[in-house]
């Protein structure tokens, strides 16, 4: 036992001393390395900015300097460029992309996307998205089926950046397979923009004919609202009816509100009286967003609904309908009407 105790104590003592020395050494070494790196990256950043925004002769010199970099200098440049890319727009962004592509950054990103490490694959997807080259679409679409959530998520974001509408159906498939990607897919659809609309309309039409138990249809409707597709209003109005698909009617109501579709006012008024609280709130909000004053009277009837969220949403919507809405609120006994009017007075500094 004595020997064992001795060995144990010596081991613990040794570990303690090693940790103390290691901590001090780590602190000193890392801070020195960080200082050196800061200086190096700052200098590199200035060269990149000059290459993108400098006077023509300075920019040319800076570009040839950047093109001439190899090995660790190129790795630093790649890192710096990808870090700067989200903050740079327009011609400078395009120039940076073309510099990176000319040095094989896209091929490097594709190689990363094929790595065995999920962190590298995610990094590869991120870089392909930042470069925004449609030529790499197939690589990204393949990554949508990756087993790692992180990789799939980065890929969804990247597809949004690439902006190719061919990615819309696979994006919806990825969403159906994993609802955790909801916000990412919607953000990607928003980035792809109006060119995604025909695919989404086709998808929603099919969903109305063949209802499914998942939220795919609801998210398609939300997507149409996000990209502002006015042509989808009749479809969205049709989606307001009860199709037995979770969240679809509420999502359609929200989308109609975003689109400001006056032809949806009557069906939305009907939806405010339906039993689903999520739909009632969405419909009330949409009516407020559309802003047709003549619905104030009918909408005010829902003020004393008994459900806080709906009452508050209805009061908020009435405020947006101008004088008729205010009148309806002033004559209502609902506490939410008094609240809405008082909040508006505060906001207007009355």
């Amino acid at each position, binding site marked *: *036992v*004595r020997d064992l*105790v001795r060995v*144990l*104590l010596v081991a*613990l*003592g040794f*570990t*303690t001393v090693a*940790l*103390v020395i*290691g*901590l*001090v050494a*780590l*602190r*000193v070494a*890392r*801070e020195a390395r960080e200082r050196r790196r800061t200086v190096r990256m700052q200098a590199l950043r200035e060269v990149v900015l000059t290459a993108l925004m400098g006077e023509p002769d300075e920019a040319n010199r800076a570009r040839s300097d950047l093109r001439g970099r190899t090995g660790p200098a190129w790795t630093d440049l790649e*890192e710096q460029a*990808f*870090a700067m890319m*989200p903050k740079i727009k327009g011609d400078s962004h395009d120039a940076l992309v073309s510099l990176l592509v000319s040095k094989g950054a896209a091929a490097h990103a594709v190689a990363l996307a094929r790595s065995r490490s999920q*962190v590298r694959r*995610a*990094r590869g997807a*991120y*870089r392909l998205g930042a470069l925004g080259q449609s030529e790499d679409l197939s690589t990204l679409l393949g990554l949508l089926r990756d087993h790692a*959530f*992180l990789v799939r*998520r*980065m890929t969804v*974001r990247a597809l949004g950046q690439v902006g190719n509408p061919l990615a819309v159906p696979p994006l919806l498939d990825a969403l159906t397979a994993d*609802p*955790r990607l*909801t*916000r*990412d897919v*919607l*953000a990607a659809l928003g980035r792809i923009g109006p060119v995604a609309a025909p695919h989404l309309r086709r998808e929603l039409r099919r969903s109305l004919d063949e209802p499914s138990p998942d939220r795919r249809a609801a998210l398609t409707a939300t997507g149409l609202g996000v990209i502002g597709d006015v042509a989808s209003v009749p479809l969205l109005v049709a989606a307001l009816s009860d199709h037995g698909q979770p969240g679809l009617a509420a999502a359609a109501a929200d989308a109609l509100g975003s689109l400001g579709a006056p032809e949806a006012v009557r069906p939305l008024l009907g939806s405010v009286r339906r039993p689903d609280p999520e739909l009632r709130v969405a419909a009330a909000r949409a009516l407020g967003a559309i802003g047709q004053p003549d619905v104030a009277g009918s909408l005010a009837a829902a003020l004393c609904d008994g459900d*806080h969220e709906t009452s*508050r949403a209805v009061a908020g919507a009435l405020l947006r309908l101008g004088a008729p809405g205010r009148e309806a609120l002033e004559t209502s006994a609902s*506490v*939410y009407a*008094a*609240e809405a009017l*008082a*909040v508006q007075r*505060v*906001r207007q*500094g009355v």
Partner: protein
Amino acid sequence: VDLLAVVTWALNSFGWFFVGYSVLINTSFLTLTVLAVADFWAYLRRLDFAAYDETFAEALAPGISILMPAYNESAGIVESVQAMTALRYPDFEVVVVDDGSTDDTAARVVEAFDMVEVPIVVPEDILTSGRVTATYLSRRGSQNVLLVTKTNGGKADALNVGINAARKQLVCMVDADSLLDPDALLHVSRPFADDPERVVASGGVVRVANGSRISRGRVTGVRMPGRWLPRIQVVEYLRAFLVGRTGWSRMGALLIISGAFGLFRKDVLLELGGLARDCIGEDAELVVRLHRWLGDQGRDGRVVFVAEPVAWTEAPEDRAVLRKQRRRWHRGLTEVLTKHRAMLFRPRYGRVGMVSMPWFVAFELLAPFVEVFGVLFLGVALLLLWLDGSGLTHLQLVNQDVIWLLLGTSLLYAVVLTLTALAIEELSFRRYRGLRDILIAIWAAFEENLGYRQLNAWWRVGGAVEAWRRTKHDWGDMQRRGLGKT
């Protein structure tokens, strides 16, 4: 019967018991540390491409109501609320609930934010004992601040009123004296985006702000405090809150989220009936009850810890205040574990029931008792050894090897764990910089074991006894110097 033999046997048995306990508690913590390392490593590797800003600062992000219960917080309330209003998040409101303060807490908020009384409807979804007396809104349109004043009912009651008043999907509970990092909401809401169907609550790490530079309610220069109590608490928080909770979260068995910084789904809080008013550790109790509810309903829900968002808090700088805090914490833990003892070893509650709750009973609830008895034992044993060594007695009742082993496994092993936590911090978030700070932290890792730990254990024993005797408790009013004046 040979009495001396019996005493020798008893002393050695006690010695081996304490050795075994120390090894178990420290090794279990080492396991949590290893799990935490895996989590930090994954987090750091994806930082450069994760684009969190882009991911969360978007219109589709769920709205958050930040609840700030306040009772006699006049000294720091304005600065805290100002800091909250400056957070980066697309859709949030700050709900300050003044729980019948006897000082001018409410008046100071009203004045600082140019507020007027407005009849905001506060539904009674959760029953409360205090009565809402007034609601105020800021006239400055850009600041979404709501002040609710109510009659005194305790912190849990104030939070319940805040939940009723909250108008967003997610509810963030913070202490009125907490300072959040600007991106804290962006980070702590991340799990809700990653897994919206399952995540029901997430908690952020709490760090000690003493010694750091604070400007306009923000920690702008992180430094180790020079004073002994706060500097020890810095390393204690790193080990227990940063590393420990990350490990538990990685294991899927996170039992506690700090009341100083936690985010919850409002609909779930309403289903749970809000915070318990009969319990001093209402934040811990809420999370344990949440786990219980999930298990009873057979729902697949997750409570996660996010190590990056930071809430800064002022740690007590004098012994009397620290004593009060630790007694309160341990009393809370005792009440929670006693109240939910039916969850112990029940597979229905998953890893929480099978792993973390038994661990908390064995190594948190009972630890101070074992520590106090261990110290007494050590004192007696060392005295007997000294008597033998000085030739005054020749009893040889104590096995010297056991004593050395006990010192090694209880003190040295603990130092190793704390140093490991410091190393993890150094390799990951690196909030502290400079040689001075690391030397102070290393010294604190040793110093913690020489008096502080033992005192702490004694105070915690008092907390457990208070819980079992069910003595009256109050808001837990702590005297603070005020952040920014440190």
